């Protein structure tokens, strides 16, 4: 099963526990400036939005890399190999989402690699705003919410039977 980070911005409080978990996992210290996931504070809109790499199936970063330093693992994760990366930053330009970034202290680029299949950010999130789910079912919860709204809006008029027109139309 291919799994992906699913982000529900409506649950985010802006605490940045995800950024700290990410930097601890990847840098061995608490350092949000080096986090692969970022929480954006849309203060005037009362919204906090975590954002990170979506692991595109056909990744711009990967295709732009001139030295093939970005590979895809068996789970579809795009991984930067530090021994190959030359720090040219072309991938940071190629990525339409801005989620590949240059790390000046190492001279390499950094991006989310899903922590090898156990993302520290989703473990650290106290409100369930970041979850790690089956990539093919990422929309399930949202579908359910909307379906429930439709259910509430619908008027219930007794047993659901085939419509007369359909019933009478059958057999012709």
């Amino acid at each position, binding site marked *: 099963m291919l799994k992906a980070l699913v982000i529900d911005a409506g649950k985010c409080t802006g605490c940045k526990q995800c950024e700290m978990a990410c930097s601890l996992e990847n840098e061995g210290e608490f350092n949000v400036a080096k986090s692969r996931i970022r929480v954006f504070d849309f203060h005037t809109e*009362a919204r906090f939005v975590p954002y990170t790499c979506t692991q595109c199936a056909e990744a711009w970063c990967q295709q732009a890399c001139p030295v093939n330093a970005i590979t895809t693992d068996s789970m579809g994760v795009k991984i930067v190999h530090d021994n190959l990366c030359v720090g040219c930053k072309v991938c940071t330009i190629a990525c339409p989402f801005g989620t590949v970034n240059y790390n000046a202290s190492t001279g390499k680029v950094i991006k989310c690699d899903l922590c090898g299949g156990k993302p520290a950010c989703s473990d650290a999130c106290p409100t369930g705003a970041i979850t790690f789910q089956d990539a093919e079912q990422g929309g399930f919860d949202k579908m359910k919410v909307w379906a429930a709204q439709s259910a509430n809006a619908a008027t219930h008029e007794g047993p659901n039977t085939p419509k007369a027109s359909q019933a009478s139309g059958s057999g012709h």
Partner: protein
Amino acid sequence: MGWTGKILRVNLTNGSVQSEPLNMEWAQQYLGQRGLASKYLVEEVDAKCDPLGPDNKMIFATGPLTGTCASTGGRYSVITKGPLTNAIACSNSGGYFGAELKFAGWDMIIVEGKSPKPVYLRVADDTVELLDASEIWGTSVWHTDEWIKSKHQDPMMHVATIGVAGENGVLYSAIVNDLHRAAGRSGVGTVMGSKNLKAVAVRGTKGVKVRDGKAFMKATNDGKKVLAENAVTGSGLPTFGTQVLMNAINEAGAMPTRNSREVQFEGAHDISAEAMATPRKSDGQKNLQTNQACFACTIACGRISKIDEKHFTVVNKPQYWHSSGGLEYEAAWALGSNTGVNDLEALTYVNFICNEQALDPISFGATVSAAMELYELGLLTKEQTGGIELTFGSAEALVKCVELTGKAEGFGKELGLGSARLCAKYGRPDLSMTVKGQEFPAYDARGIQGMGLTYATSNRGACHLRSYTVASEMLGIPEKTDPLVTDGKPALVIAFQDATAAVDSSGLCVFTTFAWTLNDIAPQVDAACEGNWTPEKMAEVGARIWNMERMFNHRAGFTAKDDQLPPRLMKEAAKTGPAAGLVSGVDKMLPEYYQLRGWTADGVPTNETLSRLAV
């Protein structure tokens, strides 16, 4: 580790900046933030200095857990001699600024002297510069924050700044960071203004390391679990914010109302957490938009509110139509019940202005309240208020007051003096609800007896955040005591004061103590820092800090006479509610408090006490 081990010293008089090592011996005795910065202040500043003169210093200080994943580990404090009180001042703030300062590699910034012209301090890791602030002097917190980020093309910066109130010498000016989090009390922003320092803008890309990573993750995860499972920190605070208290404290008859003439407010429900979360009749929208966490906080009690665009306060003022920091309990009380105003939208607007101009809403609201009483007694005339009909319950008057105070225009200039100086000026010092010149907050000392002793003995003037015995007396944390009796309260107050001083020195938020005791906190500190940090060591550090602060005030000229509550609380009994017929028993509690503290009958720490605690 935990500490970065580095201090930034900035001299505004000659424009020099230098790095120096943190005194690690003192760090073992005072931990960080409030305690450690107070130690520096006490060693370096004459207690008798003019708080608004160049000899006073101000220290922006983080704790060892600031910038870590410990829940709420993002706090910083500003320590200085306060102009409202002339006592030691220490104001604590959340948001993201404190953690950013730590990530830039600094435990604290010591600011000395006075700049010849307005400047702001930019700290980007090891790059530190004092820059011309003439373009932002005279502008608001919100404008300054935006201007600095745009000027340096760095939206990731975090800015702590004064508004116009601090520039204009309003004695309870705050320092606001991240637009609406504040080091709010005692006029720390006034000191900043007196130094011609507009703002401190920080960006950090360095890491914070801890002593034992594995033990730290275990201790902090254990702590987060306790917070999540506790009814107050896991449910009450995130859902309702501190405003969860509004109806409860009112029903307990402990809500100072109309300058403490009464202890219950008939409009409390209109300005409560429940009201904030109920769709308005006017536009069908809720005042409360969402909650917000400060850095690393898994509680998330912060309120983000939006004012009804058609409300009289903001009609034709689209700059206030966006969401911003909403009402906390103390602000809702000070601006609301204390002035008799039950208009939630008006209070939210006044709170926005307090953030935008960097005013302490507690002292501001309490000062307006005192002025309203003077006005109703005829001691202040409509001529003197510049035409403001300053009656209790008038939202229009409250709004006019806040618009004038930060700018120090008209009657706002008088309000900027604070309640003690205002009441003295108009011949009724007894009407000022203050201790050591600082307005007390949202708990009546008749209805919650421990808070009377808390206000009387607080080293920064009347304050709830020095020993929040409300937790015990109202909520039963850590154990229930009777709010209406004085028995046992001196020991309770001391235990809260010492534990709080330790928490305020760690980088954590005192709100964790609704769920955590020092037994939960010490393992987190110990895993981050060298020095075998047990709960006992934390409590001893707290007691040491308390006595050190007391000695600073003693040298500044404070005596036991300054540990008194306003006569109203001693003579006029509560009229309604559970405390009806009661006055504060603080006079009964003080002698026992002094004795338990190891102080003389005049409230001075004995040599024996000072040497026992190695102050």
